């Protein structure tokens, strides 16, 4: 990871970026409309390694620090002005084979007025980005789902979704790392190991990672 300083050395916040207090030992960074929180998070990793913990959702980053030895005003300034474009960060790209056998696949096709073949073609034709992990360890919210497949969550969530289920809801696609309750539409199955506590890093899909899906042979 390399740091290339902004040659103009102007410390102005990008449009829409705000930094607010989140209790006494954390700051909440809200990103502007043209930014990806995951990109800002990776830049924070490089530029401000002294923070205790930092994690994100699609448009926000929570930065936790040790209040006893942190200059909060300085940290606030740094978080307000940090530009991902000033840093070269490494992101991984993955291609995951999927069996398109989900219980909701036909229903999804019907609602989109498409055939199942069309749905599979749309899903495998897109490139996805991990916006953030949340909900449970290794559960990644992927953006990049084609608009034709955007659907609200199920009216009645399932009590149990099997591990490995590939699902969609709103503008996200996700794979359930472990069995859980859930209200997303099930379109397929992945045999990838999404989370392993013995592995470093433990999550396969991490903020910034790009993903494509292909039909499993």
């Amino acid at each position, binding site marked *: 990871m390399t740091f290339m300083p902004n040659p103009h050395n102007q410390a102005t916040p990008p449009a829409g970026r*705000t930094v*607010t*207090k*989140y*209790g*006494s*030992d*954390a700051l*909440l960074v*809200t990103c502007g409309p043209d930014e990806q929180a995951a990109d800002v*998070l990776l830049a924070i990793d490089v530029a401000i390694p002294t923070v*205790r*913990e*930092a*994690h*994100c*959702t*699609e448009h*926000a*980053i*929570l930065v*936790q620090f*040790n209040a006893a030895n942190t200059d909060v005003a300085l940290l606030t300034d740094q978080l307000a002005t940090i530009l991902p474009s000033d840093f070269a960060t490494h992101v991984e790209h993955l291609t995951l084979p999927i069996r398109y056998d989900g219980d909701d696949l036909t229903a999804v096709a019907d609602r989109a007025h498409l055939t199942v073949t069309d749905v599979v073609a749309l899903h495998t034709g897109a490139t996805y980005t991990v916006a*953030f*992990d*949340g*909900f*449970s*360890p*290794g*559960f990644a*919210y992927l953006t990049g789902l084609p608009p034709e497949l955007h659907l609200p*969550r199920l009216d009645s969530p399932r009590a149990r979704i099997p591990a490995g289920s590939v699902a969609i*809801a*709103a*503008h*996200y696609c996700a794979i359930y790392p*472990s069995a859980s309750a859930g209200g997303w539409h099930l379109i397929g199955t992945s045999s990838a190991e999404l*989370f392993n*506590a*013995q592995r470093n*890093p*433990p*999550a396969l899909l*991490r*903020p910034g990672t790009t993903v494509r899906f292909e039909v499993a042979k």
Partner: protein
Amino acid sequence: MSIKILDPGVQSLLQDSGRNGYARFGVPPSGAFDMRSWRIANHIVGNAVHDTGEQRSGPAAIELLLGGLRLEATEDTSVAVVGAHVDVIRLSGYGDEKHSEQTGHPITLTAGSRLHVGRALRGLRLYIAVAGGFQPEMALGSASTDTVSRLGPNPLVKGDLLRVGIGSHSRSPSASLLAAPPATDGPLGIRIAWAVDSEGFGRTNAELLGANPWTVSPTSNRAGVRLYRDGGNQTKIHGDHEHRDGRSMPMHPGAVQALPNGELVIIGPDGPTTGGYPVVGVVDRDSLDSIAQARPGSTLELLAVGS
């Protein structure tokens, strides 16, 4: 040297200062819910404490819910019980003589001695530390049990033989002066700082404070402590509370969410790292330690701390 579990009581979990650095993978910090009592218990038996955020987590102690834990030492050692108000009995010698012991003090256990922790009369959680610390297998840098995602050691069961590290011989009887949790008869005062949610919850502050006191729901656990208003949920906090994945916000333990049914949830150590309901405030570590001792049915009062 090992500690044998004869009875795990209501629930016994191994907890240390928690996991740090994995929130971005959806992994909550876990760790002791009442960090203050956990820290004091370890100090009493002479264990050096690694706090949250340090490279190493630890040392692990048993977090006991409500009471009923019975254990046996296989070799001479020292333990301490800190947290809720409870009776502690030591049984030792060939006749299993019973000796009354105090919480917040070092307790010497000779080989074969047993410890019986009674049922908490006041408070909710107890921390049982041993000289040398418990040493289960670590997961992601911590020996803590995450009750939601099942990371870390399993909850303790009868027959478990817990490995213990080598303890120092120093004991800190003076730590016992700090051990007793504050006894309150009225509502527990909880300091809440206001998170400025981008949806503009500024006017919610007065509503939340005006809605005091809040009652701790029996559905509370390490994932979160739910609060409701007595007399039903007629008073709903003004604002948009529908869960929206697209407006998920990152959280840490102590974050306070407002639910559509009028309840509040204080995120606990095993709680989710992101959430779609609005975060209306954050309670500080001190208050979180106190909340860990709040029994279902007890009341809390939210007190504003600056902004």
